[in-house]
């Protein structure tokens, strides 16, 4: 068995020793440098741009402005394209804009011989604006008369969706019901992957070639084609090794602009390297979502009727748009099934940073709101939080009518039991009740569920190509990308297992090139072991059949009597080794009668989806006078089905927990109310948590193999971030009695709330 083993990741040595080459390492040092002129107003029309001083600076090759760029509007979301215009992503972008919609929007660009000349030229460009009022708050933006960002969207509402189940209004008339209501706010945060966005472009013959740090090379190809108004086949996109993406690079960022700038200077090589400040200001962020939840329940905790309204702050452009709010809203009636439910979700433009995809795609926001609310319900009705969850959480056998997703095992109870045992929950929960004094401890937990892929909302497709080398080793090519998460190692384990070769006989192509690699939509959702797994399994099974068919020529054994094990063709009936796969490959290729290069290519479409589950338990110490939370212990327990590589799975969980800790306790993008400017768009002022802020991160698993999955897997990439913040919130509540209804739960918030509650 190769699946289930903690094999070291295939790129570990090269990454640890610095041999891996990332995008910037690959760029020719003679490349021209592109820099962007960002607006210093939050909302305005550009009246004029004076480039005369910039053009005089030595080393400046070209200056272009928002008045020069072609009028091809394009979308940026890393979604599969839809052939139905109704379901296509919103095309609201131009390469540079005359209508500035956020502080930092792109109004001009410079190409120069070096960075210093480019930076000086950017400073020398003079832009005249006709300033407009701006709006940053999501509910303010919906009001009549609020500044309008896009004329096509009245009241700035990009989209509003509703869901109704049962009869909420009738149900709440039941006598004796207890009403619990709360508002929960989550902040705008950034992904903070180590490698900033970077790309470079040049023309080769009639093609534009873009090398880019992206999660979605095949989608970038399409969007560059759309933005430049050229056939998509004339665009070649290459994705090297990537220093993290977390969803930010599941968007087309500056690849179209870089390609355009290259064409503006005769196809010369142009590099566009975002600074960290630009990554904060001009890439994508997580949607800030404000949620309002009302629950009517009976004294015993039975849920009778529930309502959710959520307001998702889209920022200036549509990007992934309503998909994020919709995901969280869709989860609401499922996690705690209830007969009478009303859900309304709004996604609203504001003059903030553009929100796109970020690890957990709306679920971190939703779980904070829903699980904080669960804890609030328990406080109001005096119910034990564990008992409430065990009574109300999605039960075994639950089937969602729309997706047909099913909960096949008693997974919530299994996960809760495992987490509670590790952290000694029951004892500590009792011990920490009713403390006094300045320093107090608390313990809390939160469950979550997560949908693995996007079906049936969007297309789920993946392809895989396998080529048998002359030594019998296998080349594997997929369109879905390694971005640091370990996908290539897991894919290789899958391929080796299904074909029947040792792990080191599989060579996966880690860098996608749209002119070479089969089509795949990329790394996003938590879909790759699931969706790409179908393509790998399908391709490997077919390749194996093909190998055995060809082996018949040399072994004269019927294919159904043979198998491949450990790189050898064996006779299945008695296990005798007939020949090695290497010998077969060599003989087949150099056969003077009938030469065969053994290959296979398959596309798999997933028409199923899978629920992934788990929980987080957190123990904190709160220093009330200092307004500080110290995280003492934390564990995530996940049921992500079968583990392909337990060590890599644990690493995924640890990284997600770290992201969850920052989300819970310190991260937030801060805006100047007077100007709309992002104030803390750098790694000093944006408080990404450091490992000095983390206790040991414990990752444990419950393995209930997913019946619909090619390898028994389901989501793990995103879910670890989801339950951390509400678990910490519950722990702080237990320690102090203070409910915190916004993130991050940082010293500023603690000071304010402790004062309100007269603790300080």
């Amino acid at each position: 068995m190769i699946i289930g083993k903690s094999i070291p990741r295939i790129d570990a040595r090269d990454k640890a020793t610095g041999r891996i080459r990332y995008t910037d390492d690959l760029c020719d040092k003679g490349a021209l440098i592109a820099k962007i002129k960002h607006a210093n107003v939050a909302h305005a029309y550009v009246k004029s741009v004076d480039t005369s001083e910039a053009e005089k600076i030595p080393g400046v090759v070209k200056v272009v402005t928002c008045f020069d760029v072609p009028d091809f509007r394009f979308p940026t979301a890393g979604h599969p394209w839809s052939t139905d215009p109704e379901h296509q992503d919103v095309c609201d972008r131009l390469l540079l804009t005359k209508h500035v919609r956020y502080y930092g929007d792109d109004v001009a660009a410079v190409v120069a011989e070096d960075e210093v000349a480019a930076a000086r030229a950017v400073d020398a460009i003079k832009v005249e604006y006709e300033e407009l009022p701006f709006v940053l708050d999501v509910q303010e933006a919906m009001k009549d008369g609020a500044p309008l960002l896009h004329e096509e969207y009245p009241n700035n509402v990009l989209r509003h969706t509703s869901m109704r189940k049962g009869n909420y209004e009738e149900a709440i008339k039941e006598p004796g019901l207890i009403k619990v209501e709360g508002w929960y706010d989550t902040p705008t945060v950034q992904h903070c992957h180590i490698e900033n966005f970077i790309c470079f472009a040049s023309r080769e013959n009639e093609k534009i070639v873009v090398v880019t740090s992206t999660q979605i090379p095949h989608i970038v190809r399409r969007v560059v084609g759309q933005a430049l108004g050229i056939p998509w086949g004339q665009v070649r996109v290459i994705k090297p090794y990537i220093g993290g993406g977390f969803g930010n690079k599941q968007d087309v960022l500056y690849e179209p602009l870089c390609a355009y700038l290259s064409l503006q200077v005769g196809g010369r090589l142009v590099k566009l390297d975002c600074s960290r400040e630009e990554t904060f200001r001009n890439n994508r962020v997580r949607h800030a979502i404000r949620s309002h939840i009302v629950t009517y329940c009976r004294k015993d905790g039975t849920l009778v009727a529930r309502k959710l309204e959520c307001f998702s702050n889209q920022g200036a452009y549509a990007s992934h748009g309503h998909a994020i709010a919709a995901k969280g809203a869709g989860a609401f009636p499922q996690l705690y099934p209830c007969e009478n439910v009303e859900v309304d979700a709004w996604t609203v433009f504001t003059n903030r940073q553009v929100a796109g995809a970020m690890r957990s795609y709306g679920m971190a926001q939703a779980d904070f709101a829903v699980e904080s609310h669960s804890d609030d319900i328990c406080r109001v009705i005096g119910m034990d939080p564990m008992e409430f969850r065990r009574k109300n959480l999605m039960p075994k056998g639950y089937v969602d009518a729309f997706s047909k997703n099913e909960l096949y095992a008693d997974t919530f109870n299994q996960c809760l039991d495992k987490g509670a045992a590790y952290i000694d929950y029951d004892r500590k929960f009792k011990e920490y009740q009713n403390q006094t004094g300045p320093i107090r401890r608390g313990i809390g937990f939160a469950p979550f569920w997560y949908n693995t892929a996007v079906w049936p909302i969007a297309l789920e497709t993946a392809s895989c190509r396998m080529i048998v080398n002359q030594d019998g080793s296998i080349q594997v090519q997929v369109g879905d990308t390694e971005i640091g998460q370990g996908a290539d190692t897991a894919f290789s384990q899958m391929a080796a297992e299904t074909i029947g070769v040792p792990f080191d006989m599989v060579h996966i192509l880690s860098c996608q090139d749209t002119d070479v690699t089969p089509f795949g939509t990329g790394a996003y959702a938590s879909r790759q072991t699931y969706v790409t797994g179908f393509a790998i399994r399908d391709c490997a099974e077919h390749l194996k059949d093909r190998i055995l068919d060809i082996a018949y020529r040399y072994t004269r054994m019927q294919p159904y009597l043979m198998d491949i094990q450990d790189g050898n063709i064996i006779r299945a009936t008695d296990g005798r080794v007939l020949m090695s796969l290497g010998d077969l490959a060599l003989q087949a290729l150099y056969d003077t009668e009938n030469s065969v290069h053994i290959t296979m290519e398959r596309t798999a479409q997933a028409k199923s989806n899978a629920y992934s589950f788990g929980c987080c338990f957190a123990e904190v110490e709160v220093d009330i006078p200092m307004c500080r939370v110290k995280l003492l212990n934390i564990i995530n327990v996940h049921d992500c089905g079968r583990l392909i590589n337990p060590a890599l799975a644990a690493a995924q969980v640890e990284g997600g927990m770290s992201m969850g800790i920052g989300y819970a306790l310190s991260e937030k993008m801060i805006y100047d109310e007077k100007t709309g400017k992002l104030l803390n768009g750098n790694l000093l002022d944006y408080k990404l948590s450091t490992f000095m802020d983390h206790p040991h991160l414990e990752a444990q698993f419950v393995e209930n193999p997913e019946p619909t999955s090619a390898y028994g897997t389901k989501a793990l990439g995103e879910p670890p971030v989801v339950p951390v913040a509400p678990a910490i919130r519950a722990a702080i509540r237990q320690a102090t009695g203070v409910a915190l209804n916004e993130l991050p739960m940082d010293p500023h918030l603690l000071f304010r709330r402790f004062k309100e509650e007269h603790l300080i």
Partner: protein
Amino acid sequence: MYDIKAIYEAKSVEHAVQLRMEHPEAVIIAGGSDVLIKIREGRLAGCELISIYGLDEMRGIRKEEDGTIRIGSLTSFSHIHADPLIQKHISVLGDAVNMVGGPQIRAIGTIGGNTCNGVTSADSASTLFAYDAVLEITGPEGVRLCPISEFYLGPGKVDLREGELETAVLIRKESYSGYKGCYLKYGMRNAMEIATTGCSVNVKLSQDKKVLKDLRIAYGVAGPVPRRAKVTEDAVRGSEVSPETRARIGELVLEDVNPRDSWRAAKDFRLHLCSTMAMRAFTQAVRKAGGEIDD
């Protein structure tokens, strides 16, 4: 790529002074952990630099005959933290500089840069204020000594005149002998942080450890420049070591500080911290000095 117009490398302190005279617009660069950031941000783009980083004569810590501890201005934070003289006599300064940024910054950043940068949040500054440090400044006229309390003229402005550079930080024997201290840094995270507020307290207790013979409280980020809490010090000097005295300190320091209201932290929060941190640092300093005080 940094936008630097020119860089002049000093071969000696004397040469550095000469370069300062020849290039009055040029900025001194030591470890570069502040200057390079300002160049990258554009605030110093296109500047001229005078590098003094190679001047080993300005590096290292020694005890002079009169007991003065002399810290060369180019001594790095990690060096200061690990130095036996510092650990023995002014361990609180070692603790304070060990809270700067992260390991890389502590290896490159210097105490001279930390003081000459002129910012109120410098982790070394409040402790140097608390120990009445004296700065040795070398210029065309030779050496002059400047008490640190007079060195800071305003945010980012220090009393370095034409041709001058800071060559050493001096802490006199009477400033450290018999004193024990504690520096508390308040940040929003536990590393890679600039202080929201820093508070350095040191105490000298009576023989029986019951009476506060002397007390010094200094703050970073409680005003535009680092400052001492003189009102409080004068009021409680000679008091009994007790929770009541500590509570008085917590109240009185509010008269000594004047933190600003900013998006990095609200004024009322900073005032709360000034008070809480003084009491916490006082408690720890008393305990280090052998005194007893309840929480």
